[in-house]
């Protein structure tokens, strides 16, 4: 046997495995909180890579980016800095579901993040494959494939799709990470030895093609929206749209080719065992599952300003390359398209998030955290949100402070984490607005109001940002007061406006607030009659208007939140022998023992735990207290 050449190469507070969206936020947060941090990446050119679509945000995901920003994370600023095109989705569908989405220059985004890591004090970056992670007296030893050993008090696994990554394209399959990277083949075993339960998930991405080979005239152009609303509460206005996206459709020829070649898809031939995400199905999935649908849409998204590569959203596939080409050529505008990177499916190891607590720490492996796709989620934004939380909590552990736990009413981040650690996931988890029961409170416009005070308390919000936040809050209060106290007389001008907006005219004085409550009216409509209106920050104006218009609904959701928090604040001890509690049903005993909820509230959301079981727990909890 070759003698070990291991040597101690460094000691840190926090080690982060992986420099994707989760790893970056984790490392930055921990370093900014004063920890010494090392972040490992198999290839430094893949830091902050966007191996799927060149965009950030979207429904519910845009909310996550806003929340990350409000807590002091980086994703929103990076997206603003490398923005190509921006749209506020769902404008007409109500404030709860307004969502920002931006097309991003993917190389620039990656460069921005790498530079941000490089320039953050206390943060070391290393190109290395971590092959082993072991417990030691200080915490963990991490060993690279080059036998260098690093010790760290805490470690965060943010391995994305790298763990035992396997690429599938038609009949061909090989070990590999995303975007032509190497896979991390050894770490899985070491994690399993630590007690991490691993399973296989699968995801996929469409082809990248050459823009010059596309006939854009046959497609529908999609321009950005002006004025651009930034993701970050700190980004000053003035961002510009720089490119267009395009839309086209598949047709019956596309469908026929796919159906004829289905047997060559590794998904359908049973080669891939991993469980795919429901939310981004491959084109073959869509054709099979929704056989009635004659056509599916395809979006063509530019990957950057200094590249002609185009991303084909909607055409994720694991069919063989010859079939991919054939099917692309049936699509209007893509008849002569040249593929630069074929579509592929990737299968990878990830953990069962039921092993984690609400702070994303493994319940049985103190100091070890998981974040991102490794936890069974899907999406850049979901990953970044978890990375931020894991990074903060690793730092809190190092400092001996209690972890930051966000509940479901605090934000989509809290909802995401609670879903993962309480319900687990059977396919890659994607955030959706419908996953939140409090979505009229958890809006993207008020993310700062919900989370910046928490970011401040943790130490990620600096004085300047705090000051500008407080100023906005003051302005909002003052404006609400003004709207409540200002009474407009029933002038002809006012009633003309009201009638033109198809709402009933007034006969006596009316408060501005009461006018804004009407669904047919907004700030803009009232400008001619609202003479005393001060200059308002657009953020403030938006929030004020929403709060007034949806007051009844918001109040109702607040009441639901209060109800929820009553149970949420009843904490359960960490070590409980649920089998020893009389009156609990067997299924409940097993589930509670596995998931080990931190509160009665979390316990009540576990499937298989009934209201009667919760009652039993309440009684038991009180009897414990009495003793």
């Amino acid at each position: 046997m070759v003698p070990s050449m291991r040597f101690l190469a460094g000691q840190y507070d926090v080690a982060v495995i992986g420099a994707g969206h989760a790893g970056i936020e984790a490392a930055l947060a921990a370093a900014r909180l004063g920890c010494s941090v090392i972040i490992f990446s198999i290839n430094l050119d893949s830091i902050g890579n966007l191996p799927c679509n060149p965009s950030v945000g979207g429904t519910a995901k845009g909310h996550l980016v806003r929340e990350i920003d409000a807590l002091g994370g980086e994703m929103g600023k990076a997206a603003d800095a490398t923005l190509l095109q921006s749209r506020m989705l769902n404008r007409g569908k109500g404030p709860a579901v307004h969502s920002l989405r931006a097309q991003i220059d993917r190389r620039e985004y990656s460069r921005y993040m790498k530079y941000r890591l490089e320039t953050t004090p206390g943060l070391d970056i290393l190109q290395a494959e971590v092959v082993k992670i072991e417990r030691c007296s200080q915490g963990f030893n991490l060993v690279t494939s080059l036998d260098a050993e690093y010790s760290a008090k805490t470690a965060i696994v943010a391995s994305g799709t790298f763990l035992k990554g396997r690429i599938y394209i038609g009949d061909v399959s090989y070990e590999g990470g995303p975007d032509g990277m190497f896979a991390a083949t050894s770490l899985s075993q070491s994690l399993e030895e630590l007690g991490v339960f691993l399973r296989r998930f699968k995801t996929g991405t469409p082809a990248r093609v050459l823009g010059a080979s596309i006939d854009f005239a046959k497609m529908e152009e999609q321009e950005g929206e002006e004025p651009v609303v930034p993701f970050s509460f700190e980004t000053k206005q003035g961002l510009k749209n720089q490119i267009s996206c395009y839309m086209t459709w598949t047709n019956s020829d596309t469908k026929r080719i796919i159906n004829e070649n289905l047997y060559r898809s590794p998904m359908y031939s049973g080669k891939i065992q991993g469980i795919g995400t429901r939310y981004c199905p491959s084109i073959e999935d869509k054709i099979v599952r929704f056989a009635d649908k004659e056509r599916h849409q395809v979006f063509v998204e530019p990957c950057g300003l200094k590249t002609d590569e185009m991303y084909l959203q909607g055409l994720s596939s694991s069919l063989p390359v010859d079939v991919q080409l054939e099917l692309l050529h049936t699509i209007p505008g893509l008849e002569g398209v040249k593929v630069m990177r074929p579509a592929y499916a990737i299968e990878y190891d990830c953990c069962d998030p039921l092993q984690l607590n609400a702070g994303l720490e493994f319940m049985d492996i103190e100091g070890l955290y998981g974040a991102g796709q490794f936890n069974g989620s899907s999406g850049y934004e979901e990953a970044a949100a978890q990375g931020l939380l894991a990074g903060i909590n690793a730092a809190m552990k190092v400092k001996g402070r209690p972890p930051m736990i966000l509940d479901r009413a605090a934000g989509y981040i809290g909802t995401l984490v609670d879903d993962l650690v309480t319900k687990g996931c059977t396919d890659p988890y994607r955030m959706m607005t419908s996953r939140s029961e409090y979505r009229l409170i958890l809006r993207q416009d008020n993310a700062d109001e919900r989370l910046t005070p928490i970011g401040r308390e943790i130490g990620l919000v600096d004085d300047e940002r705090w000051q500008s936040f407080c100023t906005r809050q003051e302005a909002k209060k003052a404006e609400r007061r003004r709207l409540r106290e200002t009474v407009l007389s029933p002038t002809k001008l006012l009633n003309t406006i009201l009638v033109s907006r198809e709402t009933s005219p007034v006969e006596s004085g009316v408060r501005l607030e009461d006018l804004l409550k009407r669904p047919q009216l907004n700030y803009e409509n009232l400008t001619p009659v609202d003479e005393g209106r001060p200059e308002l920050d657009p953020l403030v104006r938006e929030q004020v208007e929403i709060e007034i218009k949806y007051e009844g609904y918001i109040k109702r959701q607040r009441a639901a939140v209060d109800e929820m928090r009553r149970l949420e604040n009843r904490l359960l001890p960490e070590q409980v022998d649920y089998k020893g509690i009389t009156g609990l049903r067997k299924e409940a005993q097993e589930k509670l023992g596995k998931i080990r909820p931190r509160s009665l509230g979390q316990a009540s959301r576990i499937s298989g735990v009934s209201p009667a079981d919760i009652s039993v727990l309440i009684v038991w909890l009180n009897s414990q207290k009495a003793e």
Partner: protein
Amino acid sequence: MVAVNGEPDGTPEGGGSAAVDGDFFNRRSTMSRVIAAISTAAAPAGLGVIRLSGENAIEVACRFFRPRSKTKTLEEAGGNTALLGWVFDADGDIDECVALVFRAPHSFTGENVVELSCHGGLYILQRTLRAAIQAGARPAQAGEFTRRAFVNGKMDLTGAEAVMDLISAGGRLAAKSALVTHEGALFRRMQGICGHLTEAAANLAAFVDYPDDDIPELQPRELEKVLKKAEAELSGLLDRFDAGRVVREGIDTVIAGRPNVGKSTLMNLLAGCERSIVTPVAGTTRDIIEETIRLGDVVLRLADTAGQRSTTDEIESIGVNRARKRMERAALVLAVFDGSQPLDQDDRILAETAAATTSIAIINKSDMGKMIDEKYIRGLFKHTVILSARVGEGLDELERAVLEVSGVAALNDTDLLLANERQRDCACRALECVREAVSSVNIGMTLDAVGVSIDGAISALLELTGEKTTEAVVNEVFSRFCVGK
């Protein structure tokens, strides 16, 4: 732990919304912790007690109790005092009663408690309980008063385990009920309503979560159609609950048989008290008498009917007709035969009719010698029990038979009544949310707001089955729409 209170600062008070009544929300949230229940046994008695407990119990009681004295009020009443007055609801006075006020911590539960002693009778008690719920109380769960007593230090530790057992037993029984067993007719009906609402919610969710995908926008008119349908179904269910039938719990069971085979004696044996008039003169029971009894794990809603025979007595023949009709719509028929006599024509007609339904044959008077053709009966019925109602023999066997068929009896499609106040409360909340959604659509609110009301309705309905709203909607989105990149 760092603060989790991340929601925005409270908005200033006052000013309801254009769409919803803000006061309504407030009332529900602050009052939800007052619980109410009938705390005397569900059997005929001189007095029946409705008990309310919770911080605002007295305030809630004031909403449906009016003292006789013009100078006294419940709110000002001291602890351990009594006030005479009336309980009332929207339809008027229900009953004269005595209200006993106990102030925290000097009460059974350690909270503020009001006990209303009404005149016995399930109808009055149920109506009073409903008035309490309308006033803001919520129906108590099994063992909840005891649990609160324990939590507030009113019981010692040795009581704790007993309480936990009690609660879990209640849970097991509830889980067995027709509503949560997936075969129950009511469950299916609720599931149908819930399914339509979930579909609408999923439609909204897909529409907002996948703005780029070509999801057809749900037109307000269509949405309204779905909502109106749910509204009609829910109010239909609630109307039937309100139809005024005296007893609502248990399997709708009819005791049938020709005159004087001992139906009433059996009824009395089961009910444990003299309920029907029992005399040796054939044809004594001329109307239908109802009673709720518990036989082991199973609750029966028993109806003793007039003996079935051809008769010339006009009044009796009305009773006989009614009895036949009653038998037709019953979920379970207990067909009683006199074992000490040979079968006659009336017996055979009954046997053949009853055997075609879910039924148990009972050969009564086993203490008086056997003359009956037992083979004939056993050949017709799946279950035959031999007993003596007078002596009380063979009850165990009947209990076993009822347990066996009760699974089948619960299947009966005609039994679409909401079983208890808790279920009624859920249906009521669902209906309120649906109406709210309709009004939001009508005044042109954005779909996200409408969605919140629909979610509220679904979650009220799912409360009955233990499923979770957001999961139901998400699953529906993925199964119905081709969405995602």
